């Protein structure tokens, strides 16, 4: 076999793989090795068991652990994702899910969770489980556990929790996470790229 006959298919393969590869996200923190989409079951805001791995399989999924009494990080992070998802074409919106798991099940009832999420987007999924279960899920995906702070004189308390949104792409893996401070413009640049992972597979 001549050298050119050997190189041609190799070069074609390289070019093809380069053309099909989804562009890498420009923001966020890479997760290496990629995190496989976890399987866990919690209760959604309709009171029905929600099996995360199964219900979100193949979809661009934003997973965030927070609480509805959070005064700063949670509402800002969730609002920024919601603002950008709203601007996506309808077809792309259908391929995305935002899943919010409460890290404060003592105060976040299912109805409170629903009311809070509806401020941002009625399609956002709210999940609740007992505290031990949520901590187990968080540690299973490498997140530190949520910690309840000391209550003030009025009985109110804050919950320390990871301020990161983990994004699972259509290959059922998370390659990047987004800490607090991610701007809407950052999401607007990255979400189409993250959606391309699915297209790559579909192509």
């Amino acid at each position: 076999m001549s050298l050119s006959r050997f190189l041609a298919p190799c070069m074609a393969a390289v070019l093809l793989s380069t053309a099909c590869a989804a562009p890498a996200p420009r923001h966020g923190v890479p997760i290496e090795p990629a995190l496989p989409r976890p399987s866990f079951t919690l209760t959604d805001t309709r009171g029905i068991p929600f099996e995360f791995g199964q219900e979100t399989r193949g979809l661009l999924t934003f997973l965030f652990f927070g609480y509805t009494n959070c005064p700063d990080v949670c509402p800002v992070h969730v609002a920024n994702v919601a603002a950008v998802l709203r601007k996506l074409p309808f077809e792309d919106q259908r391929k995305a899910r935002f899943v919010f798991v409460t890290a404060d099940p003592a105060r976040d009832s299912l109805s409170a969770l629903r009311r809070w999420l509806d401020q941002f987007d009625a399609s956002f999924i709210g999940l609740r489980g007992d505290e031990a279960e949520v901590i187990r899920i968080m540690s299973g995906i490498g997140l530190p556990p949520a910690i309840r702070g000391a209550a003030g004189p009025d009985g109110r308390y804050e919950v320390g929790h990871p301020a990161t949104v983990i994004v699972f792409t259509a290959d059922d893996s998370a390659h990047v996470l987004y800490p607090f401070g991610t701007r809407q413009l950052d999401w607007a640049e990255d979400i189409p790229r993250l959606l391309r992972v699915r297209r790559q597979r579909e192509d």
Partner: protein
Amino acid sequence: MQWWCSASGQPWTWAPQYYPGVWLMVAVLAVVYHALSRRGRAMGESRGLFWGGWLAVGLVWQVLDWPIGPLAAGYLASAHAVQFVVLALVAPPLLLVAARRPLAAAVPASGRTRALISFVTQPVVAGVIFNLVAIATHVPAVVDGLMPSQAGAFTIDLLWLVGGLVLWWPVIVAAPPRPWFSAPVRMLYLFLATLVHTGIAMVMLVRDFPMYGIYELAPPWPAWSPLEDQHLAGGVMELAGAAVIFGIITVMFFRWSGGVDGDAAPPAPPRD
């Protein structure tokens, strides 16, 4: 206690905050204005003009102190736009109009100070200075970089007030005298000099995403989103700014067409 309002990142509270730096600055402004207004009265300025100056001192105090000051520093771009309109476009003409005679008299007849004042208050230079200040203090990286620190927030507020005084000086004080800078030219100057801030307001109005990280990532304000707030800020700059400028241009036009061209024609400074 902070001495000047800056972006803290803490959730907004209606509990009053105290900013001694703001009080000090307003006190200095009030003392200087009081001294100038006494001299102005002695030089024959009408009493009514001085109330405008005191209104300006009051407005400066209100937009720098709680609650507008801290809201503008770290929560709402719209409050920041109100600050810009007041500090750069409303307060300076009110302050200068009553103090124009003593200010004109204070310009030395010769020397470096006169040369400096003459250069800075040349209409083209003054317009460029004001617009450079307007542009620089609205660049997102500059705003996000300066507003979290008290010194940075103070710098922006001070630049707006000083930039506004520089912008309005040639129109109102007109010292050193420039015969070519007649009423029609002054109207054109005001129109041209404020086109840039109108452009900045337009950018804020049409952008699809929040421009400023400090407002986008600030603890949420319940009434509106950061993008709605930015649009509101653009509207305030656009409409309130235009109302001030075109209001003054309209008054100047009718005074000029009625044969009165005295707004910017105080007596020439006394020569030694």
